[in-house]
């Protein structure tokens, strides 16, 4: 069973300690919900979970091994959508997802058309991303989660730019993922409606 374990994580930015001694265990079907004011370190913690940023204390382990020792082997299990979409405006939706799929551990069960259908971008396969609306670009960014075989989805404000219909689509994606045994680590100002029992809430405000 896959498991992400954090022990005594600490983070310092601009000589201020954002948080320290943070510990949690995230297992299959569980959601890690980060709450806190702007600037409280939510994005920094997510970046640590991605392995993009070294923690200033403590350790982070995937199935018992330090993620910084695992490197790409850990990254094969995660997918990340941050503040910026990671979408190339000069490429079409299909081309963007082809690249995203090649960079991760490809999910052969879902092909690119399926992924676009699930985020309701059918018919936009060959449209350059520049010509999509902000909400559509966000949905394209989130489609990346579907084309790779990631167990852990790490998301920073995923609902940015989405209208209520878009939010509904994405929430059902999350629900399906968690129900199938996946893991979720998310920050959001929006209320994420998910089964209460499986949520680990962490509030980073001092």
């Amino acid at each position: 069973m896959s498991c992400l374990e954090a022990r005594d994580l600490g983070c310092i930015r601009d000589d201020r300690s954002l948080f320290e001694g943070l510990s949690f265990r995230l297992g299959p079907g569980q959601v890690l919900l980060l709450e806190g004011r702007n600037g409280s370190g939510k994005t920094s913690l997510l970046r640590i979970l991605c392995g993009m940023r070294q923690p200033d204390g403590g350790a982070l382990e995937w199935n018992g091994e330090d993620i910084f020792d695992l490197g790409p082997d850990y990254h094969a299990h995660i997918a990340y959508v941050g503040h910026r979409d990671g979408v190339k405006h000069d490429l079409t939706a299909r081309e963007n997802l082809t690249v995203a799929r090649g960079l991760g551990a490809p999910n052969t069960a879902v092909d690119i058309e399926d992924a676009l259908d699930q985020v309701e971008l059918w018919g936009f396969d060959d449209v350059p991303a520049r010509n999509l609306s902000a909400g559509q670009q966000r949905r394209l960014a989130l489609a990346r989660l579907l084309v790779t075989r990631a167990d852990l989805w790490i998301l920073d404000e995923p609902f940015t730019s989405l209208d209520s219909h878009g939010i509904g689509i994405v929430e059902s994606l999350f629900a399906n993922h968690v129900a199938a045994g996946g893991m979720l680590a998310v920050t959001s100002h929006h209320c994420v409606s998910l089964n209460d029992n499986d949520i680990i809430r962490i509030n980073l405000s001092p």
Partner: protein
Amino acid sequence: MNTPSLYRAFSLLLWRDLLLAYRRRTEMINPLLFFVLVTALFPLGIGANPELLRTIAPGIIWVAALLAAILSLDSVFRSDFDDGSLEQFLISAQPLSVLVLAKVIAHWLITGLPLLIVAPLLGLLLDLPGPSIVTLMLTLLLGTPVLSMIGAIGVALTVGLRRGGVILSLLVLPLYIPVLIFAANAVETSGAGLPITAHLSLLSALLVLSVSLTPLATAAALKISLG
């Protein structure tokens, strides 16, 4: 992570960058125009004495190539940094150094290789003899990839900075000097009819060294800049 997916990720990223450049192909002209313009400045500044120009032509053209390389370096990571794609490379299931190598090779094909095509024109402008022009193209072929690869380290270190372009030149130009020395001298030596095997061996050695070492340094620098 196994070798087929490694190779596939490499070629996918190479394809991606070439496609992106093709979709903005008018921008490819700019470094070339700069290359020609800088070269043309020298006769204007020094005087059009044909013997003098012929003597210093190898140096002029290679300095202009260095400057054109520096000018186009920023584009290797700029767009990806701005739209968040660079972060995705950092957390890819494939090693970052392989992805970096793919991007730098693509960058060289887009910005370095075209310099070779323009070089004969510059040779004519400065009245370089035929064999020298061939040598010039050969040195550009061996040298410009090295410029791209070493330059990528500098870009990786400064990509997050607000005015990184200013520092980039300071960081990268001293490291370019060996390439300049060997390449310019090769062109000069071949103009005198002497063999240039030593020069080409040295340039090839620099190329091999760059291909093996710079992706690691660039990947490490990216992780630090984005971390």
